């Protein structure tokens, strides 16, 4: 009788251990199959800003942000080399929002204030600062 009770206890323990392993496995699967959203922070802003840049700015400023985009041939002076820009974030936000003409720069830099949100403008400035070679 004691042996029977012992055997039953062992079976119960084994079942509980198996359940714990299964739960852990499910948690790992859930975590890896559904990645957590990136926490906000500089890296996330740079990533979001790169998406904005490659959607809206790349035509003129180029994929390397060096002012050699496919439309650069239309303009003299050429679009700015943003890798070597000496402008601070506040200036960049102003010229992106209001366009080149508003800043006494090229009239062909469009005002983006109606198209981009303040968050997008902030993100693209963060991205440009992250790839600036002057710092």
């Amino acid at each position, binding site marked *: 009788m004691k042996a029977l009770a012992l055997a039953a206890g062992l079976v119960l323990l084994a079942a509980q251990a198996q359940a714990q392993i299964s739960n852990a496995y499910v948690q790992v699967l859930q975590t890896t199959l559904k990645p957590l959203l990136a926490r906000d922070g500089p890296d996330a802003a740079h990533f979001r800003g790169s998406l904005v840049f490659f*959607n*809206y700015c790349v*035509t*003129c400023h180029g994929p390397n942000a060096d002012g050699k985009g*496919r*439309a650069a*041939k*239309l*303009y003299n002076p050429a679009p700015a080399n943003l890798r070597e820009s000496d402008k601070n974030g506040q200036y960049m936000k102003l010229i992106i929002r209001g*366009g080149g003409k508003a800043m006494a720069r090229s*009239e*062909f830099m*469009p*005002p*983006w204030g*109606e*198209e981009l949100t303040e968050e997008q403008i902030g993100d693209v400035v963060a991205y440009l600062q992250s790839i600036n070679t002057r710092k």
Partner: protein
Amino acid sequence: MRTTVPAAVAALAILLALPAHAAEHVVSQKGKNFSIKRLSVQQGDSVKFVNDDPFAHNVFSLSDIKSFDLGSYGQGLAKSVLMDKPGVVEVECAVHPDMKLMIEVKK
């Protein structure tokens, strides 16, 4: 009379040099789209780009036969481009990358 005849001949020569039926085609920008996706025009025709959106557009083309940038212009404003060479002109908007228009310029 001696002066009017050469003048008339010169005027006639100028008229003959111009395209016979230069037309103006109107393309609207509305809802972040061009009103048409493809347009066929004759060499010498012009295309008028009218902004019917409540925000600015910036129409441009990098095509070999006609490259231009009309700059940024707001609601109700329009700018025209003369299609003076035959070929294909791909038109885009700098502010709205999904806007595309193909213009075929026929001889």
